[in-house]
């Protein structure tokens, strides 16, 4: 449809780079891009100036150079699955670089056990396609993380490092990446300095770990266009089991001991509190301990299950019944790799915090008490569904309160919004870490509050050095 409206100043230049089919400055298109999957998107989402969908790294280079020449800010975007709130960008002006057109797998290198893919591919597509070849990668099998893009995942935009429940943080599976720096230079991380070596990246090259450096920088230091991930063999046997504990302390004894088993015997593990366990159709008077285990043979899988059983039994755990085990298997099928079950409950807001093993029992109990107190104060008990779960990941533990509510109720929405902000203050005062409080809007507006001063200052200095014109995602790291 032809329009007579005045286009963004860079419309023609961007159309010359990617083709007019892939450029839009329509008001409603910008509106759509202003809203990610966070519960606060409708409060903080501000339309930027123009959206462009590059098809290759060279397109991105040209876009970045154009942005630098014209001092036009850029907001890189993957699948729009951030849950920390949209970035401020430069409303009405910035170029949103939608990376989802760059969605190819470049190489599944089975001999070297790595997969190289473009940044716009979704995690679910990448996982499925490496699974088809008999391999797996570190990934988060539940939404919204499962439909995040590779670039969104590495950049931290889809809520931090990502949890492969039980196995590790997903960022540990990232070996290298291709980044278009703010000046338009293409930089490949963790490759040997020797120009003759065109082989795969090696994360532990004797040089600074720039893969780690760019992870979680939200595109503030460059746009990720490709990523290389470590692959591991897909297990032939996968199964589910469930145990129950009368008290949190009993559960904690099991979790504490299990954390020292190396390699970790669970493919995934999460522990609902009694109320959540009840909502899941399990026992409403005990803490649940739902875990998946896998093996390349029946024997290996069974061996792992026995390790978990032994530790749980020692801590006073009770075995789930056959029906309960089946129910957990069904739950996994419904929730993992799927959205429907979760979205059926309502819009979500996550009040999660991450701490080390030593402090976790105290923190978990305080977290639960804080939530209950706030629910009473705000009079929202019974108006929403809340889950409280424990996720052990590597050396850390996550206490995760998930709120599901009716987003069409403005009063309730406001209360949840206030609660979320109060939670950020709560964890900030106590020195805990939360993905939601350090991503998206919060990252852009609150690093001076959430980060230690020396970290904040260091990031500020780095940003200033790498991106003097403040092109990439302005507002991040106080710049």
């Amino acid at each position: 449809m032809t329009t007579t409206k005045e286009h963004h100043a860079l419309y023609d230049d961007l159309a010359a780079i990617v083709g007019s089919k892939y450029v839009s400055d329509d008001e409603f298109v910008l509106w759509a891009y202003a809203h990610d999957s966070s519960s606060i998107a409708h409060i903080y989402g501000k339309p930027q100036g123009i959206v462009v969908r590059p098809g290759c790294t060279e397109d991105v280079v040209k876009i970045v150079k154009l942005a630098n020449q014209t001092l036009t800010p850029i907001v890189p975007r993957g699948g729009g699955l951030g849950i920390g709130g949209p970035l401020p960008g430069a409303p009405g002006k910035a170029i949103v670089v939608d990376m989802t057109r760059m969605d190819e797998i470049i190489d599944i290198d089975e001999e070297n056990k790595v997969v190289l893919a473009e940044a716009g591919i979704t995690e679910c597509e990448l996982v499925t396609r490496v699974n088809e070849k008999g391999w797996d990668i570190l990934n988060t099998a539940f939404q919204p993380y499962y439909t995040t893009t590779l670039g969104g995942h590495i950049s931290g935009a889809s809520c931090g490092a990502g949890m492969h429940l039980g196995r590790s943080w997903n960022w540990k599976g990232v070996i290298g990446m291709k980044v278009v720096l703010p000046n338009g230079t293409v930089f490949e991380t963790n490759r040997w300095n020797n120009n003759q070596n065109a082989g795969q990246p090696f994360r532990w090259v004797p040089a600074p770990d720039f893969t780690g450096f760019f992870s979680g920088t939200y595109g503030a230091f460059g746009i990720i266009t490709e990523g290389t991930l470590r692959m591991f063999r897909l297990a032939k046997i996968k199964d589910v089991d469930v145990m129950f504990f009368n008290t949190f302390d009993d559960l904690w004894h099991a979790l504490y001991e299990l954390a020292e088993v190396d390699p970790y015997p669970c493919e995934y593990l999460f522990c609902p509190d009694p109320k959540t366990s009840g909502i899941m159709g399990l026992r409403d008077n005990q803490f649940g301990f739902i875990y998946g285990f896998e093996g390349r043979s029946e024997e290996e899988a069974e061996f792992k299950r026995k390790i978990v059983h032994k530790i749980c039994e020692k801590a006073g755990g009770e075995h789930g019944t056959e029906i309960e085990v089946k129910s957990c298997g069904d739950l996994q099928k419904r929730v993992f790799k799927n959205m429907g079950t979760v979205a059926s409950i309502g819009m979500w807001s996550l009040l999660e915090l991450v701490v080390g093993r030593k402090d976790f029992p105290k923190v978990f109990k305080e977290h639960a008490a804080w939530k209950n107190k706030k629910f009473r104060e705000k009079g929202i008990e019974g108006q929403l569904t809340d889950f409280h779960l424990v996720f052990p990941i590597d050396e850390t533990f996550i206490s995760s309160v998930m709120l599901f509510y009716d987003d069409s109720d403005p009063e309730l929405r406001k209360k949840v919004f206030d609660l979320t902000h109060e939670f950020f203050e709560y964890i900030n005062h106590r020195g805990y870490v939360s993905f939601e409080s350090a991503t998206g809007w919060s990252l852009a507006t609150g690093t001076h509050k959430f980060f230690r001063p020396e970290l904040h200052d260091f990031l500020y200095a780095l940003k200033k050095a790498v991106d003097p014109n403040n092109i990439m995602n302005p507002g991040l790291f106080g710049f």
Partner: protein
Amino acid sequence: MLELEKYKRNVYSCVRCGICRAKYDENVRRVCPIREHSGGFDTHYAKGRIVIARGILEGKLKYSNGIADVLTYCTTCRNCIEACGAVDMTTGNPKIDSTTVTEAMRADIVNLDLTPEPYKKLSSRIEKDRNPYGEPKENRNKWAEELDIPEKADTMLFVGCTLCYRRMEIPIATAKILKKLNIPFGILKDEWCCGSPLWRTGARKLAEKMARHNIEALKDAKTVITSCAGCARVLKDDYPKILGNLPFEVLHFTEFLHSLVNEGKLKPEKRIVKKVTYHDPCHIGRHLGIYDEPREVLKSIPGIQLREMYPTRENAWCCGAGGGVKICHPELAIEIATDRLGHAKEVGAEAIVSSCPFCKTNLLDAIKKTGSNLEMHDITELVALSMGI
């Protein structure tokens, strides 16, 4: 009041996870054919449209020509709803019925006089000629001239515009099958467009007018059968929603054939040695849940080797023609259909079989454009062939 207001809960239930764009697993290869073949902006699939809808409901956006245009980019295939999977726990219905939201927005666009030109032409032709092709009313039953079909019977064949004017081979095969089986049936003397293209593109008042006429004309029937997937969807689903329970049962012809096969009344005997794949039309697949019946009918034909495409059934890739896309964006529709040819080739099929005249037309257009050697048949044609007619 905006039509969209009726679907507020649908709009506010969306958590913007984007699975309606990106689902990819052993059964699904991405979700939205439009998104894959257009500029691919967020507004070109369900999530973005829902965000726009919310902006409109909250008064932050207003309907515009631009929004009207972007709303034409939806085949109403409902694959996004299938991928989403969120369920209203009180009714069991989809919680985020993004297709219905899109149709409601199209209705608002029409009511606000922002109707895109192709939609306007479509409505005006249906208003004037009772069919979307602008063909003379008097030619509607021309296909049946040699077949001596009565105007009244307990079982009425609702033919549909596309079959009457564009794919006459299908109603001819349908009629011959019924005659060979000695099943008395009739066709209306004054059948009007079922209203499907109107319903899908937002012209609800005119669609209701069509519905009222057809229901009145069919009121003495006990069973109404149709070989058109679009007509089946409208007769089975839209008519009762607007006008209450119908005085007759509605069956897509594949359901009717399936019951005949089950009862032993239909026994295809002539061998058709062919590797075929079945393309699920969205209008009887995801819209009505008819998946097994056509497959069972195909399997009853001796010699047929049925191969399933990937994706198939509930996750089948739309042919690209539905929801007004073929009239607004014909090249886009053919691009999408070309995907389906690729899916058929991947499983070694020699022919695609479907049960929708619109799918047949669009897939044939893609075959012609790409020079593919695939055959394209409606299921009724193969059944008729296997019956020696």
